[in-house]
């Protein structure tokens, strides 16, 4: 039996402002910042990459004198910004996957979709945050790797370069900015496969396997097939100026390919998220 007072009460609460994208985005941000594992994961990504680069530079420094003339001539200090990057990429990709797959694992995804029946808002807020966070992580990590690498090389008296060199700066920024691609793909795979193991495997396979198979394949395969894959495509417009490999495409082609891959993955994720039962 509804009295006037309760009627008023229920109408008042129902008249609250509409839930907006900003609300969803803010809630996703809260999810990330209230878990210690977020900071540990990102921190590890940074420190392991920088440490690996430092160690590698030390190894080079120690063994340089034993190198052949040809090897010494081909020594390129710029490359030392890249060595530990694969660690950061793996960590960032796992991070991207887990922002989604974790919710399916513990059932939180249902609560997310109950609070946000316009489900694609959840997808896109996660994309925005993962993109932003992994870009910052990537830039910070590459800069850190570069500075540490150069410092160690310098300590051994080897030729170094600095960020004042425009090529070096372009590489550092390019490499850092390319970081979010696989995390975002991983995020999409999280919604598509709804499994942590499955999505991480798929994302890392896409990241890793082309590198593994690269040397086993003939040049035409590298130039025409591998070059289409997302990792290779993004390299074409971020680091191709410094790294000349057969899998590079012209920069614009690379951009189009990356847009195509993201459309494929995110488009599928959006479609499946809307249509499937949660």
């Amino acid at each position, binding site marked *: 039996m509804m009295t006037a007072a309760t009627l008023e009460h*229920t109408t008042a609460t129902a008249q*609250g402002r509409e*839930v907006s994208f900003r609300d*969803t985005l803010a*809630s996703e941000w809260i999810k990330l910042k209230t*878990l210690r594992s977020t900071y540990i994961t990102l921190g590890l990504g940074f420190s392991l990459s920088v440490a690996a680069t430092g160690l590698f530079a030390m190894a080079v420094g120690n063994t340089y004198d034993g190198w052949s003339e040809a090897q010494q001539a081909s020594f390129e200090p710029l490359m030392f910004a890249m060595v530990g990057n694969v660690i950061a990429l793996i960590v960032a990709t796992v991070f991207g996957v887990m922002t989604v797959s974790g919710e399916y694992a513990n059932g939180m995804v*249902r609560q997310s979709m109950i609070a946000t029946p316009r489900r694609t808002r959840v997808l896109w807020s996660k994309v925005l945050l993962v993109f932003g966070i992994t870009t910052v992580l990537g830039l910070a990590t590459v800069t850190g790797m570069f500075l540490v690498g150069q410092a160690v090389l310098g300590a051994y008296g080897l030729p170094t370069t600095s960020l004042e060199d425009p090529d070096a700066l372009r590489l550092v920024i390019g490499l850092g900015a390319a970081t979010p691609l696989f995390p975002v793909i991983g995020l999409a795979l999280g919604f598509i496969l709804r499994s942590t193991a499955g999505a991480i495997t798929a994302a890392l396979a896409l990241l890793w396997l082309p590198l593994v198979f690269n040397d086993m394949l003939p040049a035409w395969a590298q130039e025409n097939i591998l070059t289409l894959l997302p990792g290779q495509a993004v390299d074409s417009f971020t680091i191709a100026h410094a790294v000349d490999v057969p899998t590079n495409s012209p920069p614009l082609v690379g951009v189009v390919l990356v847009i195509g891959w993201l459309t494929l993955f995110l488009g599928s994720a959006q479609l499946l998220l809307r249509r499937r039962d*949660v």
Partner: protein
Amino acid sequence: MIEVQQLTKRYGDTAAVNDLSFTVQPGRVTGFLGPNGAGKSTTMRMILGLDTPTSGEVLVNGRPYRGITSPMREIGALLDPKAFHPKRTAYDHLRWIARAGGLPRTRVDEVLDIVGLADVANRKAGEFSLGMAQRLGIATALLGDPPILLLDEPVNGLDPEGIRWIRSLLQRLAREGRTVFLSSHLMSEMEETAEHIVVIGRGQLIADANIEDFTRNSTSSHVRVVSPRSSDLVPLLRQAGAAVVEAQEALTVTGVESGWIGRIAAEHGIELHELTPRRASLEAAFMELTGDSVEYRATAASTLETMEVR
């Protein structure tokens, strides 16, 4: 108000929910009963827009869930008390949910007070017992102060004090004019808490009635009569169509109201020492009605004995 209209949900060939229609009205506690696998959770997920019906529709205050702009202000739900990240504090868990629902942060403290978890708000949710997790889930449902509450097995895991607490909470919310819809297996508790029940079995509606009416029609409802002249009374009762079982101490009479028995006895001058109407328990009425719609039934003990002999 929740309106379920010809709701059907198929998975392949089997229908988990089959042409289900009922309405849950405000102002009272409505129980949702059914054997395991009857389709209760599926129905609740469809109410909340998580699962899409194969056919039919369900409306919450006149609209499908996915069309509501601020759903948490209109309907609060508890489906799975353990749906949280174990390493996140209870407070932060409610915080993200409140934010996602466009609700002010102050609501988090308010609902924590209502459910009595204010003292442990900063503990990690993974450390909670099942009972505490249930309270957290109820707090989640209450965040938007909604006029409709949908709770799946909210009593599960609560100790007797907790059960009593939630019973009075739900009844208070119903008295405020809200719609309260909860599913439970605990018959005795349902009997105490709910006034109206919707019973389903194998995805189909079995009953949609007042608890009083539901149990009155069960064969286990009877009247216990003790009289020094029961031998005179029995033929009178049987003549009127009642079924009488005579035991040493008392008669068990079914098919007539106790008031009628009293009047007949008075008209014939038969002394009555006991005249006690015994309403069937909800459990008895329920088992009777849903007996053949249980999908998975444990083997009876006698069958196990024969198995051993072989």
